[in-house]
């Protein structure tokens, strides 16, 4: 399907933003696990 230049730029920006967002979500989840493990330590 043909897309104009603006649509391409928007698509690439959305992909980059979504990638960064998912990375932050994953980082938050891993942090929470590490913090929980430390809480359980005697």
């Amino acid at each position: 399907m043909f897309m104009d230049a603006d649509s391409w730029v928007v698509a690439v920006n959305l992909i980059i933003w979504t990638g960064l967002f998912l990375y932050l979500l994953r980082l938050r989840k891993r942090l929470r696990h590490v913090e929980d493990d430390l809480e359980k330590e005697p």
Partner: protein
Amino acid sequence: MKTFLAWLLWIWISLVIVGAFFYAPVAENFRVPGSSRIVFFHVPMAWSSFLGFIGAAVWSLRYLLRRDPRHDRAAAVAIQLGLLFGVLATVTGAVWARIEWGAWWNWDPRQTSILASLLFYAAYLALRQSVDDPEKRGRLAAAYAMLGLVVTPFLFWIVPRITFSLHPEPVVNASGKVEMDPRIQHVLYSSGLGFAALFFWVHNLECRIQALSERKSAP
């Protein structure tokens, strides 16, 4: 940040990206009209940088009052993020300057003042690295960061308004008015809010990472 709020932020910034290209009109009087869209990303990055530097001064003041290491850590992280957003604003500005003014760097008052503030805060990080005692480091760094309460508004807001600048008119112009198309304002302010939320989210994550790191390295 709660998962619901995180996904709200994803939707918010995605709408800003779409709005920047399909809702807001391109500004007039630009050599390359489409280049004006950089305002939706470049300006909020500079605002986030300012937020980081002013936030660091506030956390530093709280550290000096209560001597809580969490405030010292929060100030240091705010400055690291302020530098990150400041560098991003400078780089995106240089790309835009190449397109509109024909050169990456022009020693324009705004370019020069943001460079000066980045150097000022890079020195803050160097200061922190040079002191081993956490208590002494916290006090010195907090005093230095509080100087930013004077330096940062002067460099970010006053210098560009009292000198001739190649830059387009600031959001709030010299006569105290906002003379922008309302649709440009909607996207710009939404982007500013989105970037501020992103700043606080990353700030929270980085503070927690540094707290864990300090706990791990503690004897």
